[in-house]
């Protein structure tokens, strides 16, 4: 043992190779073993966010999702794409395609004969992706509720978008003004004019707030044609 020369080139290389194989093998194994559990957690999380955006609070998330939510996809012209389940679409990938090829997911929640339309949102915060769901009342311009999430925003600042105090502000706000222009705005904290389309932002999280505005104004107008066809078909 005492004769082991830990400074020779051969030893160094063998040590590194063994270490990397052990560490890599262990992590790969751990990742494979836990993948089904993690996928299930992510599915549960996504579906509970969709339900949360309509302020539904049950415990049987998957069962309730299956019975209450209908997922479909629409194109930029507002036509429903047949045979596509909106939940299976990856929103991030769709937004990278040219506009004419995109499929936008829509989730319809039926509650006592009334329909709520839930749209997925995706955008950029300060450090990484922010995303969420926004649900509309039957008039198609008043928000019923929202559920946001993020990948790496700063805890206590940008990450506050996942907290109820922030999300509750969106309830009942209108996205379009009387002329049909997109108007919803998140302001700097304390600067909000308290109108029916204004939301108080988070102090110290200016870039996340800006990202929030960009996310809404990028995503929601894509559904304008779909909402128009819904209105005319009524």
């Amino acid at each position, binding site marked *: 043992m005492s004769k082991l020369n830990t400074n020779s080139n051969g030893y160094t290389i063998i*040590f590194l190779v063994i270490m990397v194989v052990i560490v890599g093998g262990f992590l790969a194994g751990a990742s494979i073993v836990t993948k089904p559990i993690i996928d299930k957690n992510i599915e549960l999380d996504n579906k509970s966010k969709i339900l949360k955006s309509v302020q539904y609070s049950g415990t049987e998330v998957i069962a309730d999702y299956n019975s209450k939510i209908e997922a479909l996809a629409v194109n930029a012209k507002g036509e429903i794409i047949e045979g596509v389940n909106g939940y299976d679409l990856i929103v991030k990938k769709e937004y990278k395609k040219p506009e004419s090829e995109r499929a936008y997911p829509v989730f319809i929640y039926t509650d006592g004969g009334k329909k709520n339309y839930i749209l997925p949102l995706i955008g950029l915060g300060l450090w990484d992706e922010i995303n969420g769901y926004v649900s509309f009342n039957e008039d198609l311009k008043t928000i019923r509720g929202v559920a946001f999430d993020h*990948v*790496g925003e*700063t805890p*206590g600042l940008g990450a506050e978008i996942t907290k109820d105090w922030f999300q509750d502000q969106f309830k009942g706000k209108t996205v379009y003004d009387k002329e049909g222009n997109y108007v919803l705005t998140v302001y700097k904290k304390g600067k909000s004019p308290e109108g029916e389309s204004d939301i108080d932002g988070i*102090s*110290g999280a200016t870039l996340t707030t800006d990202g929030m505005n960009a996310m809404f104004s990028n995503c929601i107008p894509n559904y304008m044609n779909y909402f128009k066809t819904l209105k005319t078909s009524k």
Partner: protein
Amino acid sequence: MSAYDKLITDPLSVNNPITVQILGVCSALAVTSSLANALVMGVAVTLVTAMSNFTISAMRNYIPGRIRMIVQLVVIAFLVTLVSIALKAFVYDLSKELSVYVGLIITNCIVMGRLEAYAMANKPIPSFLDGIGNGLGYTVILVIVGVIREIFGSGTLSLPFVEQKLHLIPQALTDIGYQNNGIMVLPVASIFLIGILVWIHRSRNSELVDIS
């Protein structure tokens, strides 16, 4: 036993990782905007420092000197990734809450600082205790800064995994014109606070004053 006790108590004061060793300041600036964040980060760093100290110390006689830093980093990253996978699989909500902290732990200077300064030259059990001690010393400073920043920046106190916050500023005070101090919310505030802490700490401990 007294030597072991010192391993835990020293870093709390005379050898504090932040105010004396000046390590781990970067994360102390970033995550101290509330008490809840400070506590979570403190616990996470304590665990990782103790575990990696133990692992590195156990293999210290086999690590080739020239690549010891690489080996240390691999061990830290391995432990942190393993914990992150386990959190995602078994406590998904907690893993979302911790998201950025996990990355911050890998880059935390205290972890590597203790590996270099202590674990490479000492036996596993003392190294483990040294990790716990330094993690606690880090947590103490984080909690002090976190409490001050949260009270003056947001007027609240929060605990991890408790949605309800404790509001400390009465409405009457707000009505007569009290405002939260905006700078306390930003990381800038913590550099002033940590600076003041270092100052107070040194002026009260004559052994820390460098006379040369």
